[in-house]
């Protein structure tokens, strides 16, 4: 087993996802298959190879420090599931 149900639960929490019990079992098994397949990578010799994080090597892409118009707060909030006055609104963090 590459990944246990408990690990699946931990990862789900990190990703803010919730699964029903039977989904957890199914996911655990599917993720195991996928991760087993990933083990293939261990065959590749990567000693001394720099990890590649960009397809094309660019550097120093900047913008100048100038202010441009922002959105109005109506437009900023126009897609919000819940807004109150000029604010986005969310349920409180229960402590």
């Amino acid at each position, binding site marked *: 087993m590459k990944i246990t149900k408990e690990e699946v639960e931990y990862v789900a929490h990190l990703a803010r996802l919730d699964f029903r019990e039977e989904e957890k079992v199914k996911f655990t098994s599917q993720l195991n298959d996928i991760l087993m397949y990933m083990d293939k*990578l261990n065959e*590749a010799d990567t000693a001394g190879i720099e990890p590649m994080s960009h397809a094309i090597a660019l550097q120093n892409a900047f913008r100048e420090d100038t202010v441009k118009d922002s959105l109005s707060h109506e437009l900023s909030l126009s*897609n919000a599931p819940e807004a109150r006055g000029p604010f986005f609104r969310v*349920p409180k963090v229960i402590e």
Partner: protein
Amino acid sequence: MELHQLTIHELQKLIRSKEVNSSDIVKSVFKRIDAVEGSVHAYITLMKEHAFEEAAKADRCIREGNIRALTGIPVALKDIVCTKGFLTTCGSRILHNFIPPYDATVVEKLKEAGAVFTGKTNMDEFAMGSSTETSYFGITKNPWALDRIPGGSSGGSAAAVAADLCIASIGSDTGGSIRQPAALCGVVGMKPTYGRVSRYGLIAFASSLDQIGPFTKDVEDCAIMMNVIAGHDPRESTSVPLDVPDYTAFLSRGIDGFKVGIPKEYFIEGIDPEITEAMRGAMKAIEGLGATCVEISLPHTEYCLAVYYIIAPAEASSNLARYDGVKYGFRADDCKDLLDMYKKTRSAGFGAEVKRRIMIGTYALSSGYYDAYYKKASQVRALIKRDFEEAWKHCDVILTPTTPTPAFKIGEKIDDPLQMYLSDIFTISTNLAGIPGISVPCGFTRQGLPIGAQFLAGHFEEGKLIQIAAAFEKQANLKQRRPNL
């Protein structure tokens, strides 16, 4: 021939000679949509009213002689590019009501060129899929066989072009999402070099792999579309500040003397024999045009899928964290507190495949696993890129099948993620290396399903791809065949 069946360049001739105007074309396309969209379901949102308004504007431009590259041409957009004031869902419930306050750069460029948008096309949710079956808005069918998938993730855009529900369309390609559906729907699809077409306004799946490209009915249209959408964008840090050539200039150059690399690792077990056969035909056709086929090796090919299915989900797990029910989109009801709101919203807002990839990606980046998965995959990715650099010493372009099989049946692979992932086996390396690729029709199976050939070239060598694809297309002469809808 009806207007909706024509290509961009054919319609442009008619527009220039004042034989038709944009309203005529748009009318024809929407008539076609009314007739067959019900059975194909290529679109999530149609922009009919808007299209006719824009067509009227285009007609004024035509009368005034102000004709630009795409003036009056109906173009469909994958529902992954943001359109100001128009619903943009990314195929997901979590964005089922999202109306962007801005246009993607590619949308701005198309507008500037005079294109008329017909609507937003269906896609796998967040572009995660190879069949367009994971869309929250229902499945799209392959116009060549309605019980089959059109490929994915840009299945709607491919099907729309194949079924004449638009003249050309825009898709996005993270691991083959343009080329694979183009092949399965019998149209031309190009994934440009990473950084060539701006990603600004393209809803991110895997930022280091995503690239926008066109679906067209032929290679000439592909060149016309590329001329419009390619170019540096200061709003994207990874956009490449290079001049863009006129791609139409490559159309009739021929390929005499071209060396075409055939990677031995791509002709593996599991390829449909009809595809292998079609590839042999393609090689013969190319040699008939004066090119030579040479065997090459891309030794790290076997790792592509594993690398891809670590890097893409890892980036996706982070890119999709913003869908939290706070600023836009879906929010679950009856939430006890913030944590409950997050979990309920994301669990109900995302479909199974998206959640599966978020889980893989989160796991691959999590404490204790980063080195074994994400870092290792990024290192192997460098080796895959190196394979191609080595290959260019021996050939000008590479030829491979676009897909290992023709379009499969709806529902056939949806419960077997690994099998589904394998349908991208030939297209993924391109995205990992950042190189451009094009899929052009190269034949049909006995059942009448399209087969695609994929050409690959070095960074920023889209011109070479247009050059060989155009020559091959002319030789293959498959354009007369149309889906029977």
